[in-house]
């Protein structure tokens, strides 16, 4: 496989990592006001992502940076094409990040509510907009964009609810389970609609990926119903992985209308340099991020000590 293909796949992997990890961050941010009844529970919910959300977001920084380096014309064309949606998306990421970092440090309950508002809106905007942007890239249609946005929003809610039920104890854990079931009521039908985003003449791989992703969403619902939270989380993660794989399969070999991967690509020398750096760095990144999840593996409780 030549390096242009390798880097297209690697960029798909980086986006996949971003959607799987930040997907539950967005869901948690959206669900915090719904799941929690008081400040103690809000902290319990938000602290499930507290130590990891910032590291998760670096998957996006890396995906975008890798696109810039390996496919400059794709990076430039995509970002300038979705100009205003990206402004909105960046606003979301800004107010969410600041809200998460500052909510434990603000001076009073009013300011804390402002942080919560930032976290909520700042999670909803990117959760919707990434789906809309990529669906529009695939289909170049406003309807597909709305469906794609709603699907990614619903999937983030489901993924986040399952994550909270996996990472907490007590009342919040039960509330998260109910929220997951409620989210699936939206996620499943919208997901079926989103299958229409598979481009005409989509490859067998894209179809298989999209269909198995849908099956994984259904499986997640069944598993959370039966209180198998770990397996349910594996299922929602699988759905995101396969959905993203199908998406990037659909973008190959023309990730932007009128621009092929080969035309967009950097030269072979740059590709080689990037490959070496990626091969050396990524195993370490995966190892220490995995270790972080191991360190914070315990369920969080809202009980008084």
């Amino acid at each position, binding site marked *: 496989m030549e390096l242009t293909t390798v880097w297209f796949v690697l960029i798909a992997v980086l986006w996949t990592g971003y959607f799987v990890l930040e997907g539950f961050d967005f869901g948690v941010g959206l669900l915090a006001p719904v799941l929690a009844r*008081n*400040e103690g*529970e809000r902290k319990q919910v938000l602290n499930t992502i507290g130590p990891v959300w910032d590291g998760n977001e670096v998957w996006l920084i890396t995906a975008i940076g890798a696109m810039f380096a390996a496919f400059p014309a794709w990076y430039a064309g995509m970002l300038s094409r979705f100009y205003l949606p990206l*402004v909105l998306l*960046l606003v979301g990421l800004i107010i969410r990040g600041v809200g998460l970092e500052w909510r434990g*440090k603000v001076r009073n309950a009013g300011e804390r509510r402002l942080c919560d508002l930032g976290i909520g809106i700042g999670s909803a905007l990117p959760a919707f907009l990434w789906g809309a942007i990529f669906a529009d890239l695939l289909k170049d249609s406003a309807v597909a964009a709305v469906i794609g946005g709603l699907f990614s929003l619903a999937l983030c809610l489901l993924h986040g609810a399952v994550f909270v039920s996996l990472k907490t104890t007590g009342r919040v854990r039960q509330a998260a389970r109910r929220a997951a079931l409620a989210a699936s009521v939206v996620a499943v039908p919208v997901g079926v609609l989103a299958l229409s985003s598979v481009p005409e003449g989509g490859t067998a791989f894209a179809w298989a990926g999209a269909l198995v992703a849908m099956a994984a969403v259904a499986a997640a619902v069944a598993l959370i119903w039966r209180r198998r939270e770990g397996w349910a989380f594996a299922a929602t993660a699988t759905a995101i992985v396969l959905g993203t794989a199908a998406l990037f399969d659909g973008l190959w070999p023309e990730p932007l209308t009128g621009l092929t991967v080969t035309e967009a690509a*950097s030269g072979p020398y740059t590709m080689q340099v990037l490959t070496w750096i990626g091969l050396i*760095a990524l195993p370490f990144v995966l190892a220490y991020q995995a270790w972080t999840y191991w360190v914070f593996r315990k369920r969080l409780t809202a009980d008084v000590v």
Partner: protein
Amino acid sequence: MEALDLARWQFGITTVYHFLFVPLTIGLGIFVAGLQTAWHRTGKEHYLTLTKFFGKLFLINFAMGVVTGIVQEFQFGMNWSEYSTFVGDVFGAPLAMEALLAFFLESTFLGLWIFGWDRLPKRVHLATIWAAAIGSNLSAYFILAANAWMKHPVGYVVEDGRARMTDIWAVLTNSTAIAQVPHVVGAAFVVAGGFVIAVSAYRILHERRAVPAVPVPDTSTTTPANAKASTGDPAMWRTSLRAALVMTAIAGAVVAGTGDMSAKLLHEQQPMKLASAEGLQHDESSAPFSPLPGVEIPYLLSFLATNDPNAVIQGTEDLQARFEKQFGPGDYRPNQAVVFWSFRVMVGFGLATIGLSVLGLWLTRRRRPLPTWFARICLLALPLPTLAMIAGWLLSEIGRQPWTVAGELLTAASVSPGVSLAEVAISLAVFTLLYGALAVGEAVLLIHYIKAGPEVPAAESQPGDDEAPVLQPTLMY
């Protein structure tokens, strides 16, 4: 008014704003890691108190650096798609390396540090803050290597209208980067040192006035006894003050030395910037240096730029004529007033900060108490280096105009062709308003915690803060 003009304003505003937070992240991260190391080594409680106090200020600031940094990465593609397509092959590589090698380290380990106080063994926990701080400093290297390439492009060829990298090593060891990295990172340590100097001096003044401590509103159960204890012992602030004075003086020496290196590189690589900074219009041998208009020190510019007091320094008008011959008609002079004055603000305020740190070390030598008059002057250590830093960036980047990549790509040809004036206007307005609001938030929070002083560790785990107290995995949060 064109989209180009607004895109330039947007880049200027968002970049300067981003760089208000970055120096504190770079310098204060290492400072906090140093404090925690001192606590680890000596076991003295006041080092832990200082670690947590400055750690909290560090984290309030860190959030802003991160979120404004994302905008930077997107902005190249959104507003400057022609630039991005032209340079991505070369410029993108250090950016990708920055994310892979630096940002992951910084963000992941900072999360571990914040939440790991009672989850990790002490030694491992100490390592996490070092890993995060090293990540921040590494990121500075990569982004500055990318930035240096814009001003002095190396290790590439132009093929089919796009730059193609031929030598990553040349890009990463660009002479401009080698001079710029210690200059900017050193300046970041001066900014962070100045911040700690000002905060410590404020705390010392605060305690001398013997005003009862301002209670932290959130810890409503804090008893007066706790509140009194929270002002800590004055010796503690002397410790942080002295450490910051040393850090600022050393970093200041590095900044001054590499600034001299940069001047010599400007003479070779960016003569237009050098001439504009000096307001030198015509080629001149034995060129004088004028610290302020009307004041001239003979031979000094030639000497600073080349080590030879008789050397010829090129002037803006003569360079303009040469560039027109080389690149065709056009104005190749950057905004003269901005470049001229930003150079003076940078050097003046920078040297003032270094002078302040050296004087502070002298005044507080051998257990001498910090004089009150000087403590008040120390408050200036917060704004001065920050203003110098901003001025330095204006000098560097406005002085680069009209090029985005010197000699290869004009700024006017870099902007996104498909993005309308209205779109840029909207994003400029949105980011400016949002950034303004967040600046107020950051200032309010920093002032609040600086005034409140450090918290007593015991008070933090006291219940009653919220409607429903909760076991939290951290003392920081």
